[in-house]
C-alpha cells in the first residue's frame, strides 16, 4: 500500500525519476516537500525477455547493465523479500581487490574501478570511502601468502604491499602491536584502494538506475518453479503468477541450490551462515579496515562511528539466520586481542547472512547445461564487493550468449574439468 502511495506522488511530481543534485537537496530541505519515489512498482507481466531471480546487488546490477550497456530493458527482477534483504544488506560492506590468483585480482580490480565511479554513473551517493585495507599476518605462513598476494597484485597493477609493524602503528595506532600479544603482529598486507561503502545505497542506486531504464522490480515475489522442456527454460512460476521467458539468471545467495534444483542443475555449493555484529557509535579513531585471518575477524568503523565486526562462517551448514552466543563470545575475545582499548564498548546487535561456499572459494558464473538458465552464484563470503563487475559480466553473457573473458575461468564446467580457481588463501578468514 505504501508503495502505491509513493507511486502516485511520484507520477504527480512529473519528474520521475528525479535527478539528484545539490540545488535539489537545498530546495527540498527548505520546502520540506516529500521526495519523489526512486522507482515505480509495476504489475507482473505474463512474459519477459529476461527474468533475474534475486533482487540483491548482483541481480539488480545485472538488470542495470543489461539496460544501460545492451539496451535490453524487458527484464524482471524478482525477490521473495524486499530488495537487499539477503546478503546485500547483511555483509560488512568491505571492498578490496588484493586477491591471490591473477583471474581473481583482475576480476575484483574491475569491480573496485566500477565502484569508484558508481555514484556518478547512478546519480546516487553510495558513500564509497577508500580508506585503505590492512590484512594482518600473525605467523610466517600468513606473511608468505601476503608476499605472494602482493606480487600478484602488483603484476596486475593493483596497489598492494607488505608492510612492517612500524608502518602498521602509523596507520592503526590502536592495534596491540606488542610482542606480548598472544598472536603478535608480524606484518600486514596494505591495500590503499580498499575501503567500505554504504551497501544499501548500492542496492537502491542500481534499483533506481535499472527501473529508470524500464526494468521491472517485483518485490515479495517468490519463485516456486522453473519450467524446462527440451533442455531449455520456458517459464518461471512465481507466487504472483507464471512468467514466460527464455532466459533466467539465478542471482541468489543462500538459496542458489534451491533455485538451481528447480531447473535441474546441480551445484557444488554448501550454504553456511556468517555472523556479524555492530557496536554503539564512538568517536572516529579507526581510519582503515583491519582484517586478521588468524583471529577470524575484520573490523571497520562506519561514518556514524559504529564498529562493524565480521567473522568467518559458522562451523556447520545451515539455512538458519539466527545468531549464536558462541559466536559473539568468540568475536569479542578476538577483537580484544587486537584492540584491548575496546573492552568497554557495548555491542548493539548481531545478525547472520547466508554464504554459498564453493570448493575453491571462487564464484560460479555463466551458462549451465540447461539452455537459457544462467548462474551468478557461489559467492561465499565475498559477493558484495563483486556486485558491479558480476552484473556487468552477466549482462554481457546474457546479451552475447557467451561468457566474457573476465569470467571465463569461473564457469560451472570447471568442476567437471578439474580446473579450479583456488582463492582460499585470499578470500576467507576462516581457514
Amino acid at each position, binding site marked *: 500500500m505504501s508503495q502505491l502511495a509513493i507511486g502516485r506522488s511520484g507520477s504527480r511530481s512529473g519528474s520521475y525519476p528525479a535527478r539528484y543534485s545539490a540545488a535539489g537537496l537545498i530546495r527540498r530541505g527548505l520546502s520540506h516537500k516529500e521526495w519523489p519515489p526512486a522507482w515505480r512498482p509495476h504489475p507482473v507481466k505474463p512474459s519477459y525477455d529476461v527474468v533475474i531471480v534475486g533482487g540483491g546487488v548482483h541481480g539488480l546490477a545485472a538488470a542495470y547493465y543489461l539496460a544501460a550497456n545492451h539496451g535490453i530493458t524487458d527484464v524482471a527482477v524478482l525477490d521473495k523479500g524486499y530488495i537487499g534483504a539477503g546478503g546485500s544488506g547483511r555483509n560488512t560492506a568491505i571492498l578490496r581487490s588484493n586477491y591471490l590468483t591473477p583471474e581473481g585480482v583482475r576480476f575484483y580490480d574491475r569491480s573496485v574501478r566500477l565502484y569508484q565511479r558508481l555514484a556518478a554513473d547512478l546519480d546516487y551517493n553510495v558513500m564509497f570511502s577508500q580508506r585503505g585495507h590492512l590484512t594482518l599476518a600473525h605467523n610466517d605462513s600468513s606473511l608468505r601468502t601476503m608476499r605472494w598476494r602482493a606480487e600478484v597484485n602488483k603484476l596486475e597493477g593493483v596497489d598492494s604491499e607488505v608492510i612492517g609493524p612500524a608502518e602498521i602503528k602509523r596507520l592503526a595506532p590502536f592495534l596491540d602491536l606488542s610482542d606480548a600479544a598472544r598472536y603478535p603482529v608480524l606484518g600486514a598486507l596494505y591495500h590503499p584502494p580498499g575501503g567500505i561503502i554504504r551497501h544499501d545505497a548500492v542496492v537502491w542506486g542500481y534499483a533506481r538506475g535499472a527501473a529508470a531504464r524500464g526494468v521491472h522490480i517485483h518485490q515479495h515475489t517468490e519463485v516456486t518453479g522453473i519450467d524446462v522442456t527440451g533442455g531449455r527454460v520456458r517459464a518461471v512460476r512465481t507466487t504472483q503468477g507464471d512468467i514466460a521467458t527464455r532466459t533466467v539468471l539465478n542471482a541468489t545467495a543462500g*538459496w542458489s*541450490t*534451491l533455485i538451481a534444483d528447480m531447473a535441474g542443475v*546441480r*551445484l*557444488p*555449493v*554448501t*550454504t553456511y551462515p556468517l555472523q556479524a555484529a555492530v557496536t554503539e557509535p564512538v568517536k572516529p579513531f579507526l581510519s582503515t579496515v583491519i582484517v586478521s585471518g588468524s583471529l577470524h575477524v575484520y573490523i571497520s568503523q562506519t561514518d556514524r562511528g559504529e564498529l562493524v565486526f565480521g567473522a568467518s562462517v559458522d*562451523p*556447520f*551448514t*545451515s*539455512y*538458519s539466520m*539466527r545468531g549464536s*552466543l*558462541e559466536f559473539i563470545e568468540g568475536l569479542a575475545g578476538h577483537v580484544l586481542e587486537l584492540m584491548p582499548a575496546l573492552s568497554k564498548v557495548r555491542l548493539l546487535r548481531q545478525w547472520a547472512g547466508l554464504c554459498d561456499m564453493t*570448493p575453491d572459494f571462487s564464484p560460479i558464473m555463466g551458462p549451465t547445461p540447461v539452455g537459457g538458465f544462467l548462474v551468478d552464484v557461489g559467492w561465499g563470503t565475498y559477493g558484495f564487493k563483486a556486485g558491479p563487475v558480476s552484473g556487468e559480466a552477466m549482462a554481457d553473457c546474457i546479451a552475447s550468449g557467451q561468457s566474457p573473458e573476465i569470467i571465463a575461468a569461473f564457469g560451472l564446467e570447471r*568442476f*567437471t574439468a*578439474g580446473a579450479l580457481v583456488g582463492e582460499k588463501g585470499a578470500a576467507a578468514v576462516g581457514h
Partner: protein
Amino acid sequence: MILLPCPWCGPRDASEFGHVGESSPRPDPAAASPAQWRSYLYLRANTCGWVAETWYHRLGCRRFIKVERHTETNETRESRQPRLQPAADAGSPAQQARAASG
C-alpha cells in the same frame, strides 16, 4: 544452543562436535570416470530441510555419528541409523540404557 543426540554420550552441545556434513557413496576409483569422480568430490545436495548427516564427537567419545537435523530450524533428532558401521553388539550405551529403562 543446539544439542546433538550422541548415541554414545547422550545430548551434547553442538560445539563439542566437528561437522562432517552430507556424505555420498564413494565410487570405485578404478572404474569411475573423471567426471563421475569430480561429481562425487564437489556436487552437494545442500538440502533445505531434514537431512541425515555425519558429525564427529571430537570433545566426547571421538566417534563419527549420524544425526538428523533440519537445516533451516536446526532442530535435531536421533538418526535411525546412528552408527556408520553396523555392529554386532547390543547397541550404544544410550540405546542400552533406554532398553533397560523401557
